């Protein structure tokens, strides 16, 4: 790591981890129905780092992403994002934190059906109160980068699955978050669309310096990403710091 170097106007420094997970447990149910989804998970993600979470189905990948995003609460341990402990934040505080610092791409059906492609990408910027002209410049830049300029006015129902996922990725990075989480973003895509999306993610990671963590079963994605964290039965098998 370099010395403390300010990366932007939100007070994050180069030696501050974007994500710090320590001794994270997530246990569902009790007694005979007890399921240990995550046990003693610890790792860190540095600013601009691109990592992939791999593991069999049910190994806890999605649960871990949900913990980091604050969609679910830990049974034990802590998750810190940008030095904020996620598990103790209230719903409103979490929403405001996500709005400013976090992007999320789900497996499918990511777009708001009542908003066009442009409006979907624009949504986080609108929530942050950014003026319309600045929003439009940013959205045009992103659509251009993803090769979707001609689909700007299309409604989600008029977009292909691949286009929807790319629009979702653009929306997730529109507000220049410090962390982008993606839960199997390529699982519903064919190889051509997967390649397009992975290419877009790599471009965004390099261009926007966003720390990215995604889950996948796709070897092509895993190969394209520098760091892999493997989960087996809710525990990190390799890739831990």
């Amino acid at each position: 790591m370099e010395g403390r170097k300010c990366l932007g106007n939100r007070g994050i420094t180069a030696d501050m981890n974007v994500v710090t997970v320590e001794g994270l447990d997530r246990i569902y149910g009790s007694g005979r129905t007890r399921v240990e989804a995550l046990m003693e998970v610890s790792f860190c993600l540095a600013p601009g780092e691109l990592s992939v979470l791999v593991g069999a189905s049910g190994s806890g990948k999605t649960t871990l992403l949900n913990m980091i995003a604050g969609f679910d609460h830990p049974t034990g341990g802590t998750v810190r994002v940008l030095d904020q402990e996620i598990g103790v934040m209230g719903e409103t505080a979490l929403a405001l934190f996500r709005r400013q610092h976090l992007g999320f791409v789900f497996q499918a059906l990511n777009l708001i059906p009542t908003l066009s492609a442009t409006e979907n990408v624009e949504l986080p910027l609108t929530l942050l109160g950014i003026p319309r002209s600045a929003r439009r410049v940013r959205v045009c830049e992103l659509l251009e980068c993803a090769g979707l300029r001609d689909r700007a006015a299309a409604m989600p129902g008029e977009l292909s699955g691949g286009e929807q996922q790319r629009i979702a990725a653009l929306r997730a990075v529109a507000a220049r978050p410090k962390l982008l989480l993606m839960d199997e973003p390529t699982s519903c895509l064919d190889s051509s669309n997967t390649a397009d999306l992975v290419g877009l993610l790599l471009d965004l990671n390099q261009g926007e310096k966003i720390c990215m963590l995604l889950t996948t079963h796709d070897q092509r994605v895993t190969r394209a990403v520098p760091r892999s964290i493997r989960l087996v039965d809710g525990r990190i098998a390799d890739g831990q710091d």
Partner: protein
Amino acid sequence: MLELYARMIIRSLRLRLRRSLVTFLGVAVAVAALVILESIMAGVGDAMLENTVALHHGHIMASWEGDERLAGLRGADVLNRTQRAGMLVKDERQAPIRLYGIDPDKERKHTVVARKLIAGSYLAESDSVIIGQPTAEILRAAVGDTIVFWRHDARPETFRLSGIFSTAVPALDGQLAFVRQDSVQANRHEAAVFTSPGEDLDTLKRIIRSKLPREAIVRIWRESLAELNQLIELNQVAMNVVLVLAIVILAFGVSSTAFVSVDERSHEIGILKATGFTPANIVWLIVLEMVLLVGIAGMAGLVAGGLVVHLWSIVGLDLSRWTSDNPHFIASGVIYPRATFRAFALPLAVAIGCGLVASALPAWKAASASVTGALRQI
């Protein structure tokens, strides 16, 4: 943010067009029905009042001792009358009576007695008298007979029976008789004051009092005709009960629509929360959508209801079949629905209030749902 809400809400309503239309129609019909019902009830109240005051009382009744007459009042017609109590005598038969000296032309315009003659004619001659059917039966008198009005402190006066009336109101038919005002002398005076609807009767009462002797009795119909007042209030209570039932039905309808809407959009709500919508943002989105839908439907209902009331107020609603024997509908059983401020404001307020309250629970449910739970719903 408001622009975003508006865009999302309008497109959401369009996207789920069938559900939106069903809710729209339900609310519009309910509001229109409430407007019509309220207006009919106002019309019924008006008809009961106008029919009843047209019996004799007027909107304001004043009585006093002395020779003064109540002068004309702006915005009101004054029917001055004289009044004496005594006995009507024919042959050996007699009946206690209150004999009124009236101005036949003015009375014909405002009161019902001239229209309720069952025999003979109205007060054509200076010595004419008209009496009620029960009095005629007691006296065994027929049109053309000579009748004597007798008082212990005055000399008898002779009249010719020109007409017999029947209003079906015992107090009127059995106790009152009418002669031309110029044919009797009396020192007890009475004035029935008739006004247009909406006139401030309390102010008019004060003006009348200021023009009469201090001991004059001046009463608004509400004070004299307590039974009628209660009946009109009872109608209002019945209307309020209907209103409460409508609120409950409307609230259930709107609430179930909002719940279906929230259930259908769980995934979308999950995405919104993941993108940074706060619970309050979600609540606003759901509540505003329902309030907008219900508000527009309510306005449409007001217009539809208003049109029906307007047309009905022109042609009238003939309820004579159910009112012909009712003393409060003596003159006419035709109701003219009247659109009051309450008839318009209340249903709209009820609809919007229902939209607000009934969508609050579904909105809270949406706002408090976990992102992971919401995203599992497709």
